[in-house]
């Protein structure tokens, strides 16, 4: 006790004598001293770094800490990009994982930056202890002048993750179990595949309805049905087949118009169903031939008026034209004003 008091006193005496010597030195070289002070001092004091520190306690092995430094620069001063820290292994227990600066250091100098540094500590503490993230010097350039602005050090307390010796016995070296390889989950892809299949099916159904494809056309497109019937029998070159084809087409026109259709009514009907209008000439020929066949000179004369092949071709063209007709018109429920 006494010994330490004496040594403290000795130290005080020593320090005082050094201070006196320093003062004498300063007096003797006062001009040079002031000059040196001026040179050492930066041109302006406005640039500064402020650390937005995270919590300083309660870290275990493997935890990350994000230090944010607000850097404010003098007008005209620029941050030297080369002086920014790079992600690296800082020490055996500390990694600098990532460094971000906003706004990015580009051609346009900004007055204020935020530097975000994420560290990861791998210190395995046996008891709570304080560790330090070292300071980082940043270089500021102002024209020719250079000065160093330091991101301050940060101290934090790490804690142990587990007991030093298990209090309930057991193996202190027992490891947590492996992660077993697991099969890839198929659910999300199954769901997506199901969705695409449903969309494809719905759109295909819509397309089939719009195009009048079988079986979506049955009964509702009489000309198409007639065309199919006639196509089916087109190889038969008999008068009976020709007669049946005429009858079939008449029935189809009747169904399409929603009433019995005679040659005289064609003009009104074609106004109701303009999709068929381009075929007007051939439809009139058909009705003429049919009148010849049933009420006039008979089937051979009608066949010279409208050959069987032409009849078959016409039925196909009519079926195609019918697809362009709105559905309501097919059912004969619309009494459109011309």
């Amino acid at each position: 006790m006494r010994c330490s008091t004496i040594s403290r006193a000795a130290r005080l005496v020593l320090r005082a004598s050094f201070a006196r010597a320093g003062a004498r030195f300063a007096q003797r070289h006062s001009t040079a001293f002031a000059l040196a002070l001026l040179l050492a001092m930066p041109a302006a004091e406005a640039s500064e770094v402020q650390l937005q520190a995270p919590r300083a306690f309660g870290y275990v092995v493997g935890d990350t800490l994000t230090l944010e430094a607000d850097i404010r620069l003098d007008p005209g001063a620029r941050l030297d990009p080369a002086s920014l820290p790079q992600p690296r292994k800082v020490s055996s227990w500390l990694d600098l994982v990532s460094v971000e600066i906003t706004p990015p250091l580009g051609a346009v100098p900004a007055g204020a930056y935020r530097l975000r540094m994420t560290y990861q500590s791998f210190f395995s503490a046996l008891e709570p202890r304080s560790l330090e993230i070292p300071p980082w010097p940043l270089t500021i350039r102002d024209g020719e002048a250079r000065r160093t602005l330091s991101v301050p050090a940060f101290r934090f307390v790490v804690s142990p993750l587990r007991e030093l010796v298990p209090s309930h016995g057991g193996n202190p070296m027992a490891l947590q179990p492996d992660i077993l390889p697991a099969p890839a989950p198929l659910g999300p892809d199954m769901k997506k595949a199901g969705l695409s299949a449903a969309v494809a099916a719905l759109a295909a159904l819509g397309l089939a309805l719009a195009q009048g494809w079988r079986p979506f056309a049955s009964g509702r497109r009489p000309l198409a049905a007639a065309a199919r019937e006639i196509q089916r029998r087109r190889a038969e070159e008999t008068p009976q087949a020709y007669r049946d084809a005429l009858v079939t087409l008449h029935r189809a026109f009747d169904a399409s118009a929603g009433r019995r259709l005679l040659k005289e009514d064609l003009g009104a009907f074609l106004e109701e169903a303009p999709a068929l209008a381009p075929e007007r000439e051939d439809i009139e020929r058909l009705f003429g031939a049919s009148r010849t066949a049933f009420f006039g000179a008979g089937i051979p004369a009608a066949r010279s008026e409208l050959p069987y092949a032409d009849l078959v071709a016409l039925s196909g063209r009519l079926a195609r034209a019918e697809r362009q007709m709105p559905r309501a018109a097919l059912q004969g429920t619309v009494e459109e004003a011309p």
Partner: protein
Amino acid sequence: MSHTRSFSRARFARRAVTALLAIVVLGALACLIVQGVRLAALARDNATIAALAAGRDLPVAVDASARVLLARAHFLMVRDRLDEAHPLVELLARKGDPAQAAAGWYDLGNARLARALSHLERTQIDPAVPQVRLAKAAYRAALTLDPQFWDAKYNLDVALRLVRDFPEVERDVKEEPQEAPKRVWTDLPGLPKGLP
């Protein structure tokens, strides 16, 4: 005349609807094909993973998926073929799937540490130390990928207590001797088995 015009407009609209529906059908079918191909690949991968888990020694291509690589690496690890497993885990880490890569590093760390512990049980210290160091590096790689990986933290803590390697912190301790309590742990590895 206006009737014909309205009709042609209607026909144009119908054609547009038809074209749109056709495009939708084709697009949905293309999606379906893509999904089907993906599903087939996944099913193949899952078959390989199941076979490896069942103990069949299946080789795995370098361009295999991350899960398959992990399954193969794990197969090798549990059979103590760590020198074959290590490059597979490195390959896995380059696949861009952080969860699988972290699992690979963690399992490799476990395998290395288990080997080190079995050396130590037979008091073979020299071969144990490098295994502990490699295990630590593996756990660190896992924790870099996933800092919230608690099992990796725990096992890294076990490895770090086994062989301590903080030279600058130890130096710190020497500089302020009166602040630090007596070091209970030395740099020598060993199993704490209680007092003699």
